[in-house]
């Protein structure tokens, strides 16, 4: 028997140590390179793994779990080498997969207790923990129902419960809000936020949904086309180094975007016809009046400004900047 070691009490593990490290990791599926020389550092707490579909987020998590062997590179989780100590890592890890996954023919409490036993919990403790985590994720009323009869939202919750039952030091959550209705999604995000901020569980949340990551995480690793394109604390990435404006114009949009870019400002579109213009510090002229600089530029080139409103930098700006979205 071995005793469990909660992350926050692990001997010799300073709070600043990263929980996950990747060093030059390349993963290939045949001729397709899913990860290209990825080097990343996931700090303690809640970290978002952000990127569009196909960026390599799930591949990274599966490589860290030992499901996929990288062609080159080294990975460590909780200070343990993934290639050499996969079982020791998985004993301290909880994984919530992206797709529907359950053990067939079991009700929820049996399923979660079974997962606890697989992770090394004694049968009695596993059953007790199963009841607790099912209560925690909001499935206490439905715990004796067969998992196959669950709705999509309930299946997401049961996946979280099975990942939590053995009290992992680190959680991998792969698109945890997929297919959930707005209320269920909010509740799931509340749970994740609570785990990361009040329960001392380190977690990596893989998602393509910026608001989910922004709400639950303190730092982020942004991926695109199999590469890490930005990483760090969200506040730092949003940075104090400039201001953001929402802008709508009448006139030639591409030409005006070109002008803004030449003036050192970055533009990217949104779902509506409103652009978000990032004005770096100093780009607004010596007096620092960024709005006036945009108006002046528009006036000089005969472009009519229909809408200009100061905004706050969001993760969307960080993401758009990192992946070069226009």
């Amino acid at each position: 028997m071995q005793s469990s070691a909660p992350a926050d009490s692990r001997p010799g593990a300073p709070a600043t140590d990263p929980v996950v490290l990747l060093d030059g990791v390349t993963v290939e599926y045949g001729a397709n390179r899913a990860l290209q020389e990825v080097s990343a550092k996931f700090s303690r707490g809640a970290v978002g793994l952000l990127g569009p579909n196909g960026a390599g987020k799930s591949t990274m998590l599966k490589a860290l779990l030992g499901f996929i062997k990288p062609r080159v590179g080294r990975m460590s989780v909780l200070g343990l080498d993934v290639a050499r100590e996969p079982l020791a890592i998985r004993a301290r890890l909880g994984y919530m997969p992206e797709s529907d996954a359950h053990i067939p023919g079991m009700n929820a409490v049996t399923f979660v207790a079974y997962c606890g036993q697989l992770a090394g919990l004694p049968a009695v403790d596993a059953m007790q923990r199963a009841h607790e985590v099912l209560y925690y994720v909001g499935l206490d009323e439905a715990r004796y129902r067969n998992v196959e009869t669950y709705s999509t939202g309930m299946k997401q919750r049961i996946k979280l419960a099975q990942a939590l039952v053995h009290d992992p030091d680190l959680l991998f959550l792969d698109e945890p809000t997929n297919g959930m209705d707005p209320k269920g999604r909010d509740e799931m995000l509340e749970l994740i936020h609570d785990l990361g901020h009040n329960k001392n569980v380190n977690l990596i949340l893989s998602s393509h949904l910026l608001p989910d990551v922004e709400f639950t995480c303190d730092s982020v690793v942004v991926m695109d086309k199999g590469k890490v394109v930005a990483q760090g604390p969200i506040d730092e990435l949003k940075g104090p180094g400039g201001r953001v404006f929402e802008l709508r114009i009448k006139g030639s949009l591409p030409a005006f975007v070109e002008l803004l870019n030449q003036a050192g400002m970055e533009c990217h579109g949104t779902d509506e016809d409103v652009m978000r213009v990032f004005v770096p510090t100093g780009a607004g002229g010596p007096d620092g009046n960024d709005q006036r600089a945009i108006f002046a530029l528009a006036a000089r080139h005969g472009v009519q400004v229909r809408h200009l409103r100061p905004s706050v930098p969001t993760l969307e700006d960080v993401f758009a900047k990192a992946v070069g979205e226009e």
Partner: protein
Amino acid sequence: MPIHDQSYRRYGGLKTSPGRAWSVIARAGIMTMIRKRAFMGLMLFAWLPFVVRAVQIYVAANYPQTETLLAPDAKMFRDFLEQQDFFVFVMTIYVGAGLIAQDRRANALQIYLSKPLMRAEYIAGKAAVLFTFLMLVTWVPGILLLFLQVMFKGSFEFLKANLFLFPAITVGALLEALLATFTMLALSSLSKSSRYVGILYSGILFFTAAIYGAMLAITGDTSLSWLSVSSNLHQIVDLIFRQTPRYATPWQVSLIVVLGLIALSISVLERRVRGVEIVT
């Protein structure tokens, strides 16, 4: 305060070291089957030949006038194991077809393999479920019959004269159970439908037997019995029970085919049981 704040707490208890998860998988699989009434009915049915043989041994031991007709010998034990082939076949399909196929259908492999267990442990746990039940309908009744013979006769005379029967029953049942377990698990890992797996398993057994039957009809020679999976097993078990082999195929060839099938099945399992399915 939200309700969930009151419930979740860190676990401070003990955890077992990795390496025992296979027994958790095996226990869960066995319990799942035992809870099924249909399965228990099948199990009872599979023990009927044992009851018949037990009566035969009792009558032969207590009524000397029947001894020439009913007296147990090595052939009786061999015949008993062969009679159980039908139940081994049915049970292999009933228990084994869904063992991995259903996990694949429910994407359970990534749940299993995200826990601290190796792929070999998962396979061992699943194999233990089917293997246990197959031994319950072959080895256990076979050994019990041997025990009953001693009990009813009240002497060790038969056992001493046929001491090879204990290892023969053990090795014969073991070989049959291992072959059925691994081939079925390999087939189960190839599909997400247990029905399809059952059909595939039956197809392989009947198809190979049919090919051998056709070759026998054409050539009139039994040396091609190695083409049939079940004939290979019969050939080896005949030899183990010191009976005259029924085919002209050398027993070594039959053994190579059986061991080759087990090795091939393990190789298929090694490729198919993974946390992620990679299609390139």
